[in-house]
């Protein structure tokens, strides 16, 4: 049995290598030279490593065998857009003024051209189109921090990716509107998607970004996303990732962030639904005074699996970082948290905080949490903590003694547990929306069938508790 599986795995590896050789001309159509060079090197690396497997330390608790056994389709050209596709991506968040960039099955989709320059100077659109338009930026940034030598998913993405999102915020530009990337999967057959994003924030610029991964139907998809983010001196970035895919889908998300001096980054990864999710977030604090908040919330049930691998490099002195991941796991769901903080020899006055808190609702749910601190400087403050628990039974009784049903008492406590992650969302309409989504998710009412996670088109049910922050 074991051998058969390995052969099939190799088959997928080989299939992709074959695809690369056969379709190279198509793959490199829009490339600048550097990108093609990265493709070749990444493919060479992939040939060596193949896909990761659970004998590797970093993949020990995330088993990919079944997933890689699946047969996938691969779209080398964009899907034909249907008439109502605009409607599909329309965002209905009340009072939430976003600029939407849409991706369907891995391909940029827009009526208004592939690349758009806004009046304030910001450029947003397809990475594919951006390469030739901004070769200097690509020569400087593309593939520089997304290390493909040690991770098969990053290497195969670098070799094969044809589309994704490009955002460039020039020096001094503060973008008022929230940018929203909606990546939707809508195909009846199994699909393997490589998605590649490049986000560049110039000095003292400002951007808030939402990145939504959704699926519409129940087909299996494997989405392999690599995102490189460069944050210039004094720049400010907020990224909210909303992950709401069907139970058959797998999302491998690798985000690399490089921060210059006095920059400020907040990422908030909100995992609501998906069969298997792997979030690699690697933050490099390369300029003094840089600060990163790396936050996450995962609400998993059934046999879902989420694996958060967070690495923060304190490379220079006087940087601060704050990691907080919270999860509620039901049924046979499993989660992994691996928080690695690396403090370089000269990174004095580092202040790094890391925490992972979990609630297991059933004894069958599992969490593997592993803090890992490697510190070479002597004047630093680092702390870490991890907790795994059940709902507080004393609190349950206290709430029920006031007349609240057991089910609602559970909801109240689960919501309370998630509250500090939600409170950290600074964009008010988004916070309210996510607040609603969390409540719906906890009540088991959040449907992946709602086109976009933010549509929340289903009529809202009456519920007994209504968390609100108004001044009652």
């Amino acid at each position, binding site marked *: 049995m074991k051998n058969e599986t390995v052969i099939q795995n190799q088959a997928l590896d080989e299939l992709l290598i074959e695809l690369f050789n056969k379709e190279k001309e198509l793959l490199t159509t829009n490339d600048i030279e550097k990108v093609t060079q990265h493709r070749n090197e990444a493919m060479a690396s992939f040939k060596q490593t193949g896909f990761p497997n659970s004998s590797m330390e970093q993949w020990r608790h995330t088993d990919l065998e079944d997933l890689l056994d699946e047969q996938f389709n691969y779209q080398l050209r964009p899907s034909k857009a249907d008439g109502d596709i605009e409607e599909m991506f329309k965002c209905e968040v009340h009072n939430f003024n976003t600029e939407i960039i849409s991706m369907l099955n891995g391909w940029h989709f827009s009526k208004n051209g592939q690349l758009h320059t806004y009046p304030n100077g910001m450029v947003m659109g397809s990475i594919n189109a951006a390469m030739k338009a901004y070769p200097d930026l690509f020569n400087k940034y593309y593939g520089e921090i997304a290390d493909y030598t040690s991770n098969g998913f990053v290497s195969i993405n670098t070799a094969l990716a044809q589309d994704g999102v490009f955002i460039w915020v020039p020096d001094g530009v503060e973008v008022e509107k929230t940018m929203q990337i909606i990546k939707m999967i809508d195909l009846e057959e199994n699909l393997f998607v490589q998605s590649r994003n490049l986000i560049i924030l110039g000095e003292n610029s400002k951007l808030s970004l939402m990145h939504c991964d959704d699926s519409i139907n129940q087909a299996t998809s494997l989405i392999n996303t690599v995102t490189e983010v460069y944050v210039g001196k004094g720049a400010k970035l907020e990224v909210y990732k909303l992950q709401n895919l069907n139970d058959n889908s797998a999302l491998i998300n690798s985000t690399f962030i490089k921060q210059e001096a006095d920059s400020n980054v907040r990422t908030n990864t909100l995992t609501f639904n998906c069969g298997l999710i792997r979030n690699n977030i690697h933050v490099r604090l390369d300029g003094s005074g840089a600060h990163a908040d790396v936050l996450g919330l995962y609400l998993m049930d059934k046999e879902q699996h989420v694996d958060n691998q967070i690495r923060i490099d304190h490379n220079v002195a006087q940087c601060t970082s704050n990691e907080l991941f919270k999860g509620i796991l039901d049924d046979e769901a499993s989660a992994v948290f691996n928080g690695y903080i690396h403090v370089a020899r000269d990174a004095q006055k580092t202040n790094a905080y890391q925490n992972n808190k979990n609630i297991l609702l059933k004894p069958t749910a599992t969490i593997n949490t592993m803090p890992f601190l490697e510190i070479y400087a002597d004047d630093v403050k680092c702390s870490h903590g991890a907790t795994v628990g059940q709902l507080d039974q004393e609190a349950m*009784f*206290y*709430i029920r003694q006031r*007349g609240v049903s057991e089910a609602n008492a559970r909801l109240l406590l689960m*919501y309370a547990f998630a*509250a500090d992650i939600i409170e950290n969302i600074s964009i008010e309409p988004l916070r309210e929306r996510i607040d609603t989504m969390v409540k719906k998710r906890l009540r088991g009412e959040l449907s992946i069938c709602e086109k976009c996670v933010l549509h929340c088109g289903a009529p809202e049910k009456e519920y007994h508790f209504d*968390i609100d922050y108004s001044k*009652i």
Partner: protein
Amino acid sequence: MLLNIKNLHVEIDGKEIIRGLNLGVNYGEVHAIMGPNGSGKSTLAAAITGKEGYEITKGEIWYKEKDIMEMPPEERANEGIFLSFQYPVEIPGVSMANFMRTAINSQREFRGQPPIPAGELLKLIEEKKRLVDIHDKLTNRSVNEGFSGGEKKKNEIFQMALLDPTLGILDETDSGLDIDALKVVARGVNQLRSDNNAFVIITHYQRLLEYIQPDFVHVLFDGQIVKSGGKSLAFELEAKGYEWIKEEKLV
């Protein structure tokens, strides 16, 4: 009779704590239950309110002519039983306002009433805050989080006032309170007292009973009520301690 407990036996982890307790409480009455540490006072409160892990092995608990022993805690609460906890639980992330709105609306739903309108709730909260001398924005804080001992106890009475129970059980509400907080708690209870409700006040000391006049005082010892009397019994206990009860019982 509002509450009628007959020959109650309660075990925790197989150990019998309440051993044949009888207690009858009528509408309009205040009963004080006194006793030394470990006599079963808090176990009695837990058994009446339906806390898990407290196993009733024998006896009956009747409330409003209903056998409540199989009722879940929330149903007993909805029937009008309120417990002021000896150790109020901190619930970070749940605001007092939301907690109380949830509780009030749960109880209203049980009675077939629509949810309370926001304006009405606001008025009610302001009114009851005054009753227990809460001045700050207590209602925007998480339930009991970071509250001082006195604030927690005042918060229990505040909740009791909001929910307006038929049977209020105060489990050592006076412990750890300074005299001012004690007076506030007593004032709250005295204002709520009526012919349509009753209170069971569990206490170790008679101090609270100087401010809340009980109709009956019971002495709980070793899982049984060994002596019952009027208000004067409390003073006798204060003067003589519990030793004479023990001796009397042994004789």
